[in-house]
């Protein structure tokens, strides 16, 4: 339908392959295939490749007419939606640099990111996000010239002359396109591999966030190695246009960018934009993605959801589900012992379970058609993965970070080792080493980033003297092929007894309990280990309801002696897995929900240890 408006004069010499040039090639090859879907008034509105490219062109022209030049930064502050992807592609098409921001970023962090990156054009989703920019004092030094907003609601009476609505912006773009029809193609043709295409701000559990510069070459390498790595996928079937992805993690994070945008342009995978972070579970059920990437938090949530609904089920369903879970755990153990492969008995048992429970169970959690799932971005408890492997999913833990374009290690199909983050991609086998002295994982391959934006000193710190990227993660080889992550280097606890302890492992064991949302192990320089634990309000509240324990607020809930007893049980069962010195002696429940806005969590929901340590110092001291 939209093929008629496809530009035909695009015979200019092509520049290097960028995400924009790949999108263009797709739009020319398969104009009528669906590229993205976004839910609008209950209907998943589809956007074909032709429509997508048409919008990207108009947007790119709009940026050109606003004076965006090679190397200029365009910041995007929005939930996941099609305009995010369009703006990203358009910016890269005209050799600009995309800067993504977390929707939860409070005003101070928005200010920091805008000043640090020097973005000239800012795309804000709605009034709330626009306000965060308008609040900034004029001497903050932000270079924002235009603020484009997507949702027009609430903008009556705003008279800041930098504001322009998405529709107006597109109109500007169309005008520019009429007078300079080939401007975008010209820019695309001059693209170079060394062009920085995006700044990905790291979450900054310690200092302020740093903008990692990823070049077209980095992105290209990432798409070659990760997206097109046959060994990752069961049966070697690469992602294609038949695959569905639910885009729900923040697109400014390298993981979702890689998993969504780059899969979209490299493989033609269909993206479905989740409505909001709260609607993810609902959207998951509607979309039933075939490829699914989740951070441990989401896997834990899905797992806890099954456990809670199991305990709430009526008698017969409860019985069936109990049987199914026991079976799943057996299948999980069998497959894990077999490097993720199926054995014939496991297949037979699974087939029976499929008819009775597993099919429905997977449909309910939205992973019925999921053929490949991955967990990454943070360490996950092996028990959780084992459960999902047991209900027949192919879940692989992988490892990567912004600074290496997420190209590091992966559990390949049929070569999985639970508890490890997998083996280096075959293409970069020589590019990964573990420093013998510190145990740090170091890398050198084409995916390694170009440095931090405007921070040459920080960049220098990140590289070893021989030019290898220091990941800051401590790991060890397992059987000489796989890598097991121990922890972040700076997180390792040395107790006063001189024992080295990795807190993440203990914390993950704690977090397998559906009642524990977040846990932070403490003990550096102390006699024994303790933990600050934040409870999961939904599940604990639900539990209290069934026990007839009345409660009012989160604070009240976390102070109930019954709740403390409940968590004690979870802590005890986690302790069983560790040596005595690694056991948690005491714990305290944090009386408030951890929050990004209060500086306790990063935008990616990782705990900021020092902040929490300071804030709840009294609680910590009371344990020693």
């Amino acid at each position, binding site marked *: 339908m939209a093929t008629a408006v496809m530009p035909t004069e695009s015979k200019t010499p092509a520049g290097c392959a960028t995400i924009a040039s790949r999108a263009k090639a797709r739009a020319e090859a398969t104009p009528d295939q669906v590229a993205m879907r976004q839910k609008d008034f209950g209907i998943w509105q589809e956007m074909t490749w032709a429509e997508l490219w048409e919008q990207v062109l108009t947007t790119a022209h709009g940026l050109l007419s606003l004076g965006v030049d090679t190397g200029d930064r365009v910041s995007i502050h929005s939930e996941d939606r099609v305009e995010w992807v369009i703006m990203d592609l358009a910016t890269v098409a005209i050799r600009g640099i995309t800067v993504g921001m977390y929707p939860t970023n409070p005003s101070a962090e928005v200010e920091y990111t805008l000043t640090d990156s020097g973005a000239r054009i800012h795309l804000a989703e709605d009034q709330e996000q626009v306000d965060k920019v308008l609040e900034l004092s004029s001497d903050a030094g932000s270079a924002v010239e235009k603020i484009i907003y997507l949702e027009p609601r609430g903008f009556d009476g705003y008279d800041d002359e930098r504001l322009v609505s998405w529709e107006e912006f597109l109109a500007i773009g169309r005008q520019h396109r009429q007078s300079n029809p080939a401007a975008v193609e010209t820019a695309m043709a001059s693209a170079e591999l060394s062009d920085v295409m995006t700044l990905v701000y790291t979450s900054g559990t310690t200092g302020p966030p740093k903008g990692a510069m990823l070049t077209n070459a980095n992105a290209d390498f990432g798409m070659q190695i990760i997206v097109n790595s046959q060994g990752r996928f069961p049966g070697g079937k690469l992602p294609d246009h038949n695959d569905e992805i639910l885009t729900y993690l923040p697109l400014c994070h390298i993981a979702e960018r890689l998993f969504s945008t780059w899969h979209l342009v490299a493989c033609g995978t269909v993206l479905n934009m989740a409505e909001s972070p709260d609607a993810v579970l609902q959207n998951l059920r*509607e*979309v039933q993605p075939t490829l699914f990437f989740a951070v441990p938090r989401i896997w834990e949530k899905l797992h806890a959801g099954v456990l809670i*609904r199991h305990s709430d089920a009526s008698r017969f369903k409860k019985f069936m589900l109990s049987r199914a879970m026991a079976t799943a755990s057996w299948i999980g153990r069998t497959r894990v012992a077999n490097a993720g492969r199926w054995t014939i008995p496991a297949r037979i048992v699974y087939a029976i379970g499929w008819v009775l429970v597993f099919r429905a169970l997977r449909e309910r959690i939205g992973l019925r058609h999921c053929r490949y799932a991955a967990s990454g971005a943070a360490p996950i408890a092996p028990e959780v993965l084992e459960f999902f492997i047991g209900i027949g999913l192919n879940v692989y833990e992988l490892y990567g970070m912004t600074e290496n374009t997420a190209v590091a290690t992966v559990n390949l199909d049929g070569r999985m080792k639970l508890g490890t983050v997998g083996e280096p991609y075959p293409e970069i086998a020589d590019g990964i080493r573990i420093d013998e002295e510190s145990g740090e994982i170091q890398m050198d391959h084409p995916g390694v980033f170009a440095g931090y934006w405007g921070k040459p000193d920080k960049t220098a710190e990140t590289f070893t003297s021989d030019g290898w990227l220091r990941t800051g993660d401590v790991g060890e080889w397992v059987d000489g092929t796989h890598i097991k992550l121990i922890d972040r280097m700076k997180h390792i606890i040395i107790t006063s007894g001189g024992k080295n302890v990795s807190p993440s492992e203990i914390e993950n064991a704690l977090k397998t309990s559906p009642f524990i949302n977040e846990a932070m192990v403490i003990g550096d320089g102390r006699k024994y280990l303790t933990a600050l634990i934040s409870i999961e309000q939904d599940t604990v509240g639900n539990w209290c309801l069934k026990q007839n324990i009345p409660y009012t607020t989160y604070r009240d809930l976390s102070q109930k002696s019954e709740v403390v007893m409940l968590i004690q049980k979870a802590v005890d069962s986690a302790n069983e897995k560790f040596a005595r010195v690694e056991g948690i002696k005491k714990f305290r429940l944090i009386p408030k929900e951890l929050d990004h806005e209060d500086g306790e969590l990063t935008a990616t929901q990782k705990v900021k240890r020092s902040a929490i340590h300071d804030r709840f110092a009294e609680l910590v001291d009371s344990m020693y």
Partner: protein
Amino acid sequence: MYRRPHMFTSYASEAKILSSTTQRVAMAVGLTVLVLMPFDLPVINQLPFIRFLGDSDWLRPVSTVLVFVIAAIGLNILAGVAGQVSLGHGFFMGVGAYSAAFLGGDATATVYGHGLPIWIWLPGAGVGAALVGMLIAPIAVRLRGLYLAIVTLGLVFIGIHLGNTDWGRRFAGDPGLGRDFPTLDIRLWKEENPLVSVSDDGQWLWFDAATNQKSYLVLLAIMLVMVLLAKNIVRSRTGRALQAIRDRDIAAEVMGIAEFRYKVIAFAISSFFAGVGGALFASLVGKLPASEWDLFLSVEFVAILLIGGLGSITGTIFGTIFVVLGPLLIEQATRWLDRQTESEGIFGILADTVLTEGPGDFGPVSTGTQSPGWPLNVFDWNVALYGVLIIVFLIFEPLGLYGIWLNIKSYFQRWPFSY
């Protein structure tokens, strides 16, 4: 979308009547069974527990079900979808029946009739009733709930009274016997030999069919069309407007739904269905006095709605089957039990305890046809059963049989969780 039943990429896909393959298969099987129902099938009837009706006593009651479904859906659109209580449904059916008689019946010295073909008198019956319904509608804008019910109740008595006037008799015929209604024969115009003969036994295509079998098939076709029509009304803009009025008429008006207009539309649609149902019912019975369109008929439809499920087309079909065939089943069961009185074993004992054969015998069910008080006979038990069922459903399952069906369905849809 195939494989993704909860993902809708257009409003059309969301509003689909049969959204899953299972539903489509079930519908195809159901339709096949319904079409084959009136025939003696050589192979199938050999199977245990499966009997198609053939030309048996059951065919007529089943045909009645088809007709009642049409009329009941009309009431459901008014009461269940639009929330306007009406006890006057029998009146609108009567209006439809006499419109049909006026248009399609044969004129005699005492009654009107124009002998027009079915494709005129059947829609005409609906339109006639709808016009009368539209006259009543303005009252519904003023009155709600119980008051509206009382006004519509009055219609029934006015109707019967009108049927007794001299003018009314020109339409309704003799108050005792009634008049002849048009047959279901399908004619192009007033020709002698009908295009499709329904009212005679005889050859149809390549098989023999009796009148009952033929009229069953004709009524089935009409019912299916009407059900589809109702389904489409409910899921269209009109249907949504009616539901908004049901949920809160003031709120609906605030949202821009013209209350007056849509209440008139609700009465018009409802009466149209009632009219068509009434005309077909009269045609099926053949001869009816005006006093048949009475309060009891109206209440029967209220019972169908409450037992079947308010606001649901599927529920209406359940309810009609239950209310129309239920009494027949009980009657047959009693007759069968009566024959077991002399036999040995539990059935004999059961018959002894349940049935009262004459004076001095004990048991709650009398086998007599008169109703001399306790023990009640089968017919009185049926009437009592209605009352009990309505009370039970109102208290325990306000959504009726459809609600029970929904519960069963959602039990499996929620599998393996409870929510």
